[in-house]
């Protein structure tokens, strides 16, 4: 049955509005990062950069001179980009690996206190991060893990483990046991079963868990603000600092912002299906 034209028009207008609301700020970031600084105050507003330039990116990445106001902005930016990739990547790998092992144990093995331990770990999803921030700070000070990669990575891992465990345990509960039983009879160890039989079948779930962890770690602000003040400072801490310095102009900030949002954008575009399934599993706990 064909819809009347005015209803279809209404739906398309609504969708257009929704897309504009979601995408316009992102488009504007990209457009500003390509606009020469002198044209920012041009009126009427140009929705498209009239003389697009890659200058902001070249200065930010240190191809052109990246010193501003006596500060090596390019050097700081490259370090922060490296730090963001390193800590988020390491946290993702550790978190998925640890929760895969634990999910297998909770789903397939019988041991004392299984249920209690599982719900104790998953239950911490309801505990907001700030409730443990201050004692963690004192702990990390005494362990000399302030401004160290290990400390901040482990905090990310502890923040996203419960969600990953919940997701992966859910996946394993739905997998038929018959596959593993054949392998068990052939004498395969638990580790072998897990990594060569279960992990490949559970790949969509693992992907969802990895995306959620990576996006979460990539976007962290309070944790690195407290625990990564200098050498391990990630992009999320550096970019707002730029905004507070008058010698760093907005073209440069928007170029930095574009790079910081490019990674999540690519993940959403290419792995959206897994992301949505992970979001749904995580939110309807």
């Amino acid at each position, binding site marked *: 049955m064909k819809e009347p034209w005015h209803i279809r028009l209404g739906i398309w207008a609504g969708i257009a509005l929704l897309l504009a609301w979601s995408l316009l700020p992102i488009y*504007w970031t990209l457009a500003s990062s390509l606009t020469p600084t002198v044209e920012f105050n041009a009126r009427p507003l140009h929705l498209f950069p009239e003389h697009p330039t890659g200058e902001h990116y070249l200065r930010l990445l240190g191809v052109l001179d990246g010193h501003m106001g006596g500060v090596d902005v390019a050097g700081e930016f490259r370090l922060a980009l490296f730090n963001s990739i390193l800590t988020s990547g390491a946290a993702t790998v550790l978190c998925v690996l640890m929760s895969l092992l634990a999910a297998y144990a909770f789903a397939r093995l019988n041991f004392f206190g299984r249920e209690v331990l599982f719900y104790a770990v998953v239950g911490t999803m309801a*505990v907001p991060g700030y409730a443990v921030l201050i004692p*963690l700070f004192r702990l990390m000070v005494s362990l000399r893990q302030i401004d160290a990669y290990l400390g901040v990575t*482990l905090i990310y891992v502890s923040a996203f483990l419960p969600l990953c465990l919940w997701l992966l345990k859910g996946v394993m509960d739905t997998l038929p046991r018959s596959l593993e039983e054949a392998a068990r009879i052939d004498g395969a160890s638990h580790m072998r079963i897990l990594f060569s039989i279960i992990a490949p079948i559970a790949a969509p779930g693992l992907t969802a868990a990895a995306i959620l962890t990576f996006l979460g770690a990539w*976007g962290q602000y309070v944790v690195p603000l407290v625990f990564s003040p200098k050498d391990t400072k990630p992009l999320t801490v550096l970019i707002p600092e730029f905004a507070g310095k008058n010698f760093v102009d907005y073209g440069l900030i928007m170029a930095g912002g574009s790079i910081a949002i490019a990674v999540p954008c690519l993940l959403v575009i290419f792995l959206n299906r897994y992301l949505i399934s992970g979001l749904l599993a995580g939110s309807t706990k």
Partner: protein
Amino acid sequence: MVLPILLTMGGLVFYPLLSTAWDSLHRVNPMQAGTPFVGISNYTRVFSDVEVGQAWLNTFKYVVIAVFAETVLGVLAASLINQLKSGRQWVLAAVVLPWALPGVVSGVIWQWIYSPGPGLLNGLLVMIGLDYEGHLWFNDSTSAMLAVSVVHIWRMLPLTIVIVLAAMQSIPGDLYEAARMDGASRLVMFRNITLPLTRGAIAVAMTNATVSAFNLFDEAIVLARNSLETRPILLQIYLEAFKKLNFSYGMALSLMVTFISLAISLGYVLRIHRSTRLD
């Protein structure tokens, strides 16, 4: 196999949680020697603290604004996307995008959009003939609160849309077919089929919206620094603990916030439980 997860969770979540509770009964401040037992004075102090009161009020306003807007707009957007016959994945990917971006970076992006001179918002308003040239959005507290809320809604609306849309997609098409045979209008179908069958999902989405509005921090600190007029309760805790170094007072505050946030989520969960049992 469970050892790594238990060690991590034990060391970095359970131990700190207990130590929060313990230390909140003492005076812990690196600038003052000793950690004497002070009973519940850290808790009673909360009630006479004017800044905490203001921050609570702000957080309360954020929650009301965000939950209302995200629920109404989220249900509306989900039903729009649900009408699409093709390209749904692409629209959904575009809509989810704001959620996936780092909160502070979104804050910086919107700060640039709100900026009085070269900002996009004033530029667009001037373009359609309104006198907003050089308008300052952070000059009075109402518009500053709204500006911060808009950024938060921009980030969190996708979650509501995804949850509600999934529920809408699981409604069998025959129901609508039958209703159409009976000559029901779109509005009637929405009210009598879509809404009742997505009620559980809407409640879940509202819980998520409440908790995330409670945890609002990134947007406020980027857009309005430490301004008391827009300061949410989490920012108050952060300033108290890491700027003034009143660790134990910060811990008492954060425990109170945790309990209130848990109580709210629990309230929702119980209501969903009851309503689904009645169905």
